[in-house]
């Protein structure tokens, strides 16, 4: 069945029409290698620098502080490994959180295997870190604090500005994985004291496989990819000009339209969240009620399992995601849902619906109409529900 209602925009977004139009000439017309000297190469070079300025403007950085990468994961890997290596003479301790994306967590684990010490900050029931715990974790040998801007599963937004202040006060480099945040919530690397920031094109209407890493002037980061002199030798490899043009345009559009998009999405999100909580018993919201991404709704339904829920939704043409162990491949439930203290069974019945500019109120109404029946259908099949109802009697 064809997906009619796309509610998985945190996983990826379609390339926006305006972005696609901007990109297309760079496949067959302006295909030159930006490092070359002849005329068509100049077009590529120009496009590269224009996109750099667009991306910089989206987060209030300088163009020369933007380095293009092949996506959010590469930016995260580069930030962690590059800073730990560059500041090895200062120390080997980094601070991050338990709810980071695996691009951060698995890099941190790798660094631990190679001698780094990592503190994983806890989060509260809403998914927020404690600033006191952060400050207490800082040691003389701490070289990096990496805290994600907004969480991809539960949408919780961290107190980034306050974290930036603490990092600055202690002279520690501060990185934030803003893959879910760029173009969705206001970001100002100056006001927020952000030293490094990861972003990814495909979460904001640009293609997959393009990203950027912002590195504040003066911060040292060893490269991850060696080779040519591209990106001031910070990241080798012939530039992905179509992707770069795309992320530049998408970032510019997203920031220009942010106010309107946010107002629309917050209204849809809250209608969806409140509608579900009101009509479906034994359901709970995961993540912070207000400090959350405009398009993120994450709800757990007790007594049912998420993959079954996704299959029934898919049969109605609704695309969504879940933190259930059964959907993870590793058969572990989402580490984010575990970190906010959900019992295993509650993580099992989690449903993430993430919206973006193309979603409509009619779609939200359709989900609100269908979801109670789907959840009940699974509960009627569930021995856990049966036991719970018997115990309630």
């Amino acid at each position, binding site marked *: 069945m064809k997906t009619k209602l796309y509610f998985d925009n945190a996983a990826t977004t379609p390339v926006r029409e305006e972005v696609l139009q901007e990109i297309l000439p760079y496949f067959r017309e302006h295909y030159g290698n930006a490092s070359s000297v002849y005329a068509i190469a100049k077009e590529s070079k120009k496009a590269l620098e224009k996109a750099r300025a667009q991306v910089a403007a989206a987060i209030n950085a300088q163009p020369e502080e933007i380095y293009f990468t092949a996506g959010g994961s590469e930016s995260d890997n580069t930030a962690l490994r590059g800073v730990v290596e560059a500041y090895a003479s200062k120390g080997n301790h980094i601070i991050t959180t338990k709810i980071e994306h695996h691009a951060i967590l698995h890099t941190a684990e790798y660094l631990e295997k190679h001698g780094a010490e990592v503190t994983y900050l806890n989060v509260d029931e809403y998914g927020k870190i404690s600033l006191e715990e952060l400050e207490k974790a800082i040691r003389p040998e701490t070289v990096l604090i990496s805290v994600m801007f907004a969480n991809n599963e539960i949408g919780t937004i961290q107190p980034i500005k306050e974290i930036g202040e603490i990092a600055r006060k202690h002279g520690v480099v501060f990185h934030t994985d803003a893959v879910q945040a760029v173009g969705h919530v206001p970001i100002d690397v100056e006001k927020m004291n952000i030293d490094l920031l990861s972003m990814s094109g495909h979460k904001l209407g640009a293609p997959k496989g393009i990203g950027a890493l912002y590195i504040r002037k003066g911060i040292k980061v060893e490269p991850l990819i060696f080779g040519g002199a591209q990106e001031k030798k910070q990241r080798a490899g012939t530039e992905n000009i179509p992707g770069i043009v795309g992320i530049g345009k998408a970032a510019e559009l997203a920031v220009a339209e942010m106010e309107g998009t946010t107002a629309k999405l917050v209204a849809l999100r809250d209608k969806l969240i409140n509608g579900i909580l009101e009509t479906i018993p034994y359901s709970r919201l995961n993540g912070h009620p207000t400090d959350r991404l405009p398009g993120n709704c994450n709800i757990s339904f007790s007594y049912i*399992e998420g*993959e079954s829920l996704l*299959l029934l939704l898919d049969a109605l043409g609704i695309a969504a995601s879940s933190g*259930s*162990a*059964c959907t993870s491949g590793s058969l572990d439930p989402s580490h984010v849902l575990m970190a906010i203290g959900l019992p295993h069974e509650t993580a*099992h019945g989690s449903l993430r619906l993430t919206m973006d500019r193309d979603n409509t109120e009619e779609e939200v109404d359709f989900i609100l109409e269908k979801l109670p029946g789907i959840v009940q259908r699974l509960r009627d*099949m569930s*021995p856990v529900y*049966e036991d719970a109802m018997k115990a309630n009697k």
Partner: protein
Amino acid sequence: MEYSEKVMDHFMNPRNVGEIENASGVGQVGNMKCGDIMKVYLQIEDGKIVDAKFKTFGCGAAVATSSMATELVKGKTIQEALEVTNKAVMEALDGLPPVKVHCSCLAEEALHAALWDYAQKNNITIDGLKPPVNDVDELHHHE
């Protein structure tokens, strides 16, 4: 990961969902690996399984294998029912993705647990039937 058409059919239209009141045997097993639970009810008359029902808290494969397993044992003798292994259930469903094999073990174990319960209630022994385990994963180490 993709499910076969048969799996999807048994997931979307599961056969034998429900309970049997005063069933001859009831078995409930859980899988500590991903936290799923399956409960099977059997009605046994004159050594034959005349009815089977299930309830499952689990993924699409877990629901489909419960549906297929109950379907396969209906009308069978106890000894025949013991041959409804997880492999037989998987074959009947045209296969399962590798990460979902453990869900079919749950169906086999739930059936066996229900037969064990029947044997206990009636003070009989069933050849080749072992007592149920609490965690199915202890039996079937990652196949």
